[in-house]
């Protein structure tokens, strides 16, 4: 039954948990005459179908949530980056060089913990629509980060960081953030409704 619980957990990103339970029940009943592949194909088909329905029926709500989530994530990431920059400057002034562990922590925060936290933030606000919001957030977050970067670095702080402005395509590696977004959102959901 472990697979069924994972399926239920995934499906709860596109529908109410009670409905996800009955859908998994239907798929388990259908699986009796089929293989495990059929079960998982149908779990993912259902996720995609319901996620698409959410996008079509509530585009405004989902876009607003996605932009706010991307703002939260970008704010955390930039705050941490600025903190490291300032502390790094202080250490450099004292003749100390930041070690590998500092860079590892910074990287971990920027590429995993910040999007994970943003996913949790989204999960508390998009009950049953987590998948659609996370997909849209993955698409809009490069634009949001590029916009914040352009405002902060070019306008507010040009003297120090003008060389750090990057073209938009450089932010597309953030597509990876979809995974921590969804994990965070589903974790937030799980804490509210135990499976």
């Amino acid at each position: 039954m472990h697979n069924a619980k994972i399926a239920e957990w995934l499906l709860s990103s596109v529908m109410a948990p009670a409905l996800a339970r009955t859908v998994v029940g239907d798929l388990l009943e259908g699986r009796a005459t089929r293989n495990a592949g059929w079960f998982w194909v149908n779990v993912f088909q259902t996720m995609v179908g319901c996620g698409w329905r959410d996008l079509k029926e509530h585009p405004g709500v989902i876009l607003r949530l996605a932009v706010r989530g991307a703002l939260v994530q970008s704010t955390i990431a930039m705050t941490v980056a600025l903190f490291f920059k300032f502390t790094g400057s202080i250490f450099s002034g004292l003749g100390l060089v930041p070690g590998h562990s500092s860079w590892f922590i910074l990287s971990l925060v920027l590429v995993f913990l910040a999007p994970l936290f943003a996913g949790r933030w989204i999960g508390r606000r998009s009950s049953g629509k987590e998948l659609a919001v996370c997909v849209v957030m993955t698409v809009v977050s490069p634009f949001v980060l590029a916009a914040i970067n352009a405002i902060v670095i070019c306008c507010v702080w040009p003297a120090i960081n003008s060389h750090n402005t990057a073209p938009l395509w450089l932010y597309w590696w953030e597509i990876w953030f979809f995974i921590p977004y969804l994990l965070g959102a589903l974790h937030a959901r799980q804490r509210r409704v135990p499976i």
Partner: protein
Amino acid sequence: MTPIALGDFEQIVLLAVLRLKKNAYGVTIREEIATKAGRDPSPGALYTTIVRLEDKGLLKSRFGDPTPERGGRAKRFVELTDEGIAAVASTQRAYRRLLQGVSLPSFSHA
């Protein structure tokens, strides 16, 4: 009152639910559609449609008892509301009016 517009697949789902009476849930609805309409809808399409029909007030649902073959999960039975029956009847009346005087090969009016 303006009748609620139904899509092609929505009509098929409503008719399958109507045929199944009190035993309409995900698995039986899919089987009924496969047997009678010759389609094999994906569960995703079916559940999305059922939820949409519930939102429109054409279907209502109730939970059955948990069963072991479903890993202790309950069935979610659906049935037509009065509005659902009216919507199906209205659509079928429209079809019949459109078919009057039209002859289709290998098709006879019931």
